[in-house]
């Protein structure tokens, strides 16, 4: 609890630094005397932007995130295991090896189906 409070105040200090820099800049930055509407255009190499940028992306991005979540969950299960590995002995080791190997079957399947090419 104590440590979490420290972390919280550390994060608050970090936020203050960010906000402070923005505030400092607000005080000293230049302001345009004449405002040009062109200045607020979205940059697209000097051309008028063709469409709005919010567009559709390819599904492979989704798979990346899905893989990340799955492997992350795997790792999350391994963290408590890692801390008790010494005391629990070979049984815990075998359990985790099975756990990881089953997951790596999924990885092998992905490799076989060339789902890891990303293009």
């Amino acid at each position, binding site marked *: 609890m*104590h*440590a*979490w*409070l*420290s*972390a*919280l*105040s*550390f*994060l*608050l*200090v*970090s*936020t203050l*630094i*960010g906000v402070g*820099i*923005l505030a*400092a*800049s*607000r005080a*000293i*930055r*230049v*302001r345009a005397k004449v405002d040009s*509407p062109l*200045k*607020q*255009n*979205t*940059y*697209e190499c000097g051309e008028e*932007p063709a469409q709005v*940028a*919010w*567009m559709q992306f390819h599904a492979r*991005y989704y798979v*990346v*995130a899905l*893989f*990340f979540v799955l492997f*992350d969950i795997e*790792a999350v299960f*391994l*963290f408590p295991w*890692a*801390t*008790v*590995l*010494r005391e629990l002995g*070979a049984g815990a*080791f075998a359990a*985790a*090896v099975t756990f990881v190997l089953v997951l*790596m079957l999924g*990885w092998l399947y992905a*490799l076989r189906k060339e789902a*890891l090419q*990303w*293009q």
Partner: protein
Amino acid sequence: MNGLVHGAVYGGVIASVLLTTIAFGIWFERKFAGRMQSRLGPTIVGPFGLLQSVADVVKLLQKEDIVPRDADRPLFDLAPVLAALFSLGVAAVVPFSPTIIASDLDVGVLYILAVGGLMVIPTFMAGWASNNKFALIGGMRAIAQSVSYGVPLVLAVLVPVILSGTLSVSGIVTYQANHHWFLTWPVFIGVPAFAIYYMAMLAESNRIPFDIPEAESELVAGVTTEYTGAKFTLFYMAEYVHTLVGSAVGAALFLGGWDGPFAPGLHWMVLKTLVLFTVVYWVRWSLLRLRSDQLMVLCWKWLTPIGVLLVLGAAAWVQFVPGGFQ
């Protein structure tokens, strides 16, 4: 209450020291790159150009704040602050000496991974809020790369956790001080794990050869294309903070942190961090950039299975090698 004050005081000190280090780190990088490219680097502002970064910050803060008409204004303004927050926030659990640590969390390693992983949110937010195609592609690349390399990062970090049996960063450093640095022993696990950590760290902080989210030859400036002045400064700073804190975490997890002979712990920690920080720039100014799909292939086809093997290897080491117990 006590914790709040402790965190605030240490946070203030650590964050200011980090930011100062970065100001001179940028100067150092520019000198370093200059020497690599047979030129001088900054020489004008201050002796040896030492105050160049200060001048740059003042210049950047004075710049006009331009927000694109079509931008999603609240998110556009929020993203740089969040970037500064999440990059600096990781430093909270890094022990710079046996006593200098802002928050000695019992799940420090998890905290590092969690808060460091949050960096994707401001990056994507900036890319999306700019309503700029280059920024959006950069944002999508950033988030895809960051989540991909999150996996080898987690696996590499698991290795010291397994070897020391604790999730606390200071606990891991203490274990290394009492036994051996994980980089040196077991060397066939420690070195590759450290290598994977280092590559994932480069990828998470968008450094060449993994800097595709801001690949300026393709995406102009990636997510920061539309940013000017102070907001750009925050992103720029966050990137350096991320690298520096990543180096510090690497030093703590694999290189024994503050452990070392002859000198106080702080000296050793600073030295190790700065060495890792310098190597980032050595790599950065030597290599070309990978393509996004090659990056992903590297991550998923090679680093992830190797990481899994290392985790199992470390577990087997702890389990079956008599010296592994202790």
